[in-house]
């Protein structure tokens, strides 16, 4: 039975994890996402579904616990925020290299360093270009509402298992801390499938299972990489997700923004449209794979694009790569935990895009 609730983003994420039939959560407290583990500890998932929840001694331990459990063919997740996610980079690279499914949520706060605990989107590059070493990709989903947070937990697990690849949910302090109405999906059963690739105790008559990201011979390691790249091409073909507002109408300008920031931009766009500016909003929901083609197609008919982010201009590079010179690309951003207001964005539309003084 679907349920309508008013929930904090972080708590909704936790509840969604239980309902998605997760087998385990390993994590470490850090603001602004500690509610995830707190909710889990308080809501007895072990009794509800048998889901295990463990507070690890660090983020490094968390991600390696995730690696171990994911290798057993289980639905496993961890969550953290920026500095904690940085500590996980080696582990994430291992998981990607060993081709294991798992979900990692980053409730981003302002950086660099200890920074501030306020909302930010400054871990975009880390998420989509690969914060860890080596040529790997995280499927990266950016929810803009508490509802999407919930839905993406389920989707993230589906994609993680479909591609045997780690999936990152890139959210931020706004979405993590805000409360909205959500419709919770029904409790999903936990997995019973015994995957061939998973460590579960050797099956007599079959080869023993090895989970590894190591290949001593470069030739073999290149094969692994080629397999990964082929998988990424598949992902790029199948899993691009975005929504647009007014983009199929006659527009001169377009804003590109993701996550919470896109909602603020939406308000600015609405105001701009009221003032007669023909403008639409393009919101990538998957940051990897990125909707290059869709943006490229739009670019031809536009006088300009404004990218709005809560960072110094990171997705901006992907927008530019998508546009490939077809139209001008401008940027407006706030950072270090500052949230742009709709008015500021409206102003940027006027000054940067339209060229008003």
């Amino acid at each position, binding site marked *: 039975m679907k349920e309508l609730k*008013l929930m904090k983003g972080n708590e909704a994420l936790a509840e969604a994890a239980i309902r998605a039939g997760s087998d385990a959560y390993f994590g470490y407290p850090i603001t*602004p996402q500690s509610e995830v583990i707190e909710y889990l500890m308080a809501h007895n998932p072990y009794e509800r579904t048998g889901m295990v929840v463990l507070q690890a001694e660090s983020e490094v331990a968390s991600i390696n616990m995730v690696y171990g459990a994911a290798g057993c063919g289980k639905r496993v997740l961890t969550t953290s925020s920026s500095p904690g996610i940085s500590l996980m980079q080696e582990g994430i690279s291992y998981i990607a290299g060993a081709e294991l499914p798992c979900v990692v949520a980053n409730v981003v706060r302002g950086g660099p360093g200890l920074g501030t*605990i306020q909302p930010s989107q400054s871990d975009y590059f880390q998420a989509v270009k690969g914060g860890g070493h080596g040529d790997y990709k995280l499927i990266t989903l950016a929810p803009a509402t508490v509802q999407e947070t919930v839905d993406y937990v389920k989707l993230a697990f589906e994609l993680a298992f479909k591609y045997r690849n780690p999936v990152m949910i890139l959210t931020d302090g706004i979405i993590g801390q*805000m409360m*909205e109405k959500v419709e919770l999906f029904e409790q999903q059963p936990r997995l019973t499938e015994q995957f061939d690739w998973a460590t579960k105790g050797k099956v007599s008559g079959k080869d023993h299972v090895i989970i590894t990201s190591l290949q001593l011979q470069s030739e073999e390691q290149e094969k692994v990489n080629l397999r990964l790249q082929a998988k990424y091409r598949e992902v790029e073909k199948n899993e691009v997700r975005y929504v647009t507002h007014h983009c199929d109408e006659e527009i001169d300008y377009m804003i590109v923004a993701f996550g919470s920031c896109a909602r*603020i931009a939406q*308000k600015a766009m609405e105001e701009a449209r009221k003032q007669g500016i023909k403008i639409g909003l393009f919101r990538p929901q998957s940051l990897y794979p990125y909707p290059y083609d869709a943006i490229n197609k739009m670019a031809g008919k536009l006088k300009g694009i404004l990218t709005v982010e809560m960072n110094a201009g990171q997705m901006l590079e992907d927008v530019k790569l998508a546009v490939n010179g077809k139209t001008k690309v401008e940027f407006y951003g706030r950072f270090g935990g500052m949230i742009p207001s709709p008015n500021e964005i409206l102003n940027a539309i006027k000054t940067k895009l339209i060229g008003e003084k």
Partner: protein
Amino acid sequence: MTEEILIAGFGGQGVLSMGQILCYSGVMQNKEVTWFPSYGPEMRSGTANCTAIISDDMISSPIVNTYDTVIVLNQPSMDKFEQTVKPGGLLIYDSNGITRHPVRKDITVCVMDASEEAVKMNNTKIMNMIVLGGFLKMKPIIALENVLKGLAKVLPERYHKLIPLNEQAIHKGMEIIKVVK
């Protein structure tokens, strides 16, 4: 209808839960809602605030420039947020501890002695419900019954016995709110 509200005060004054109750009540009345708290260092330094938006339509930004209603329960909040009331909007404040009263002329200003009333009612915890009553008096966007339903959602079962007291507080707030200008 879209009502964008900011509530600000000291940490212990129930600022965050007041916003939450408002949102729950909105849900009971089939509204769209968002609630967004200040979080972090302010909390340890003793102040807190939250934004609550209640609307008939989908809510885009949870972050807004200015508010239809601003409710302030201490002086630092008054200093910080008086300017964020929309022209023609509403500012409600609790008189306790306020040393500099609001100066804006283009808005409606209401005052309440909610803390004092709460002390009188022997329960400082319900101060925020008194204020909520005052707000609902000025902006009856949610029916009382839905507020009570909302309360029932927020409060754990074992506190449901307190709902009548809360109702009382809301009524009290509706009574004592005074339009200053």
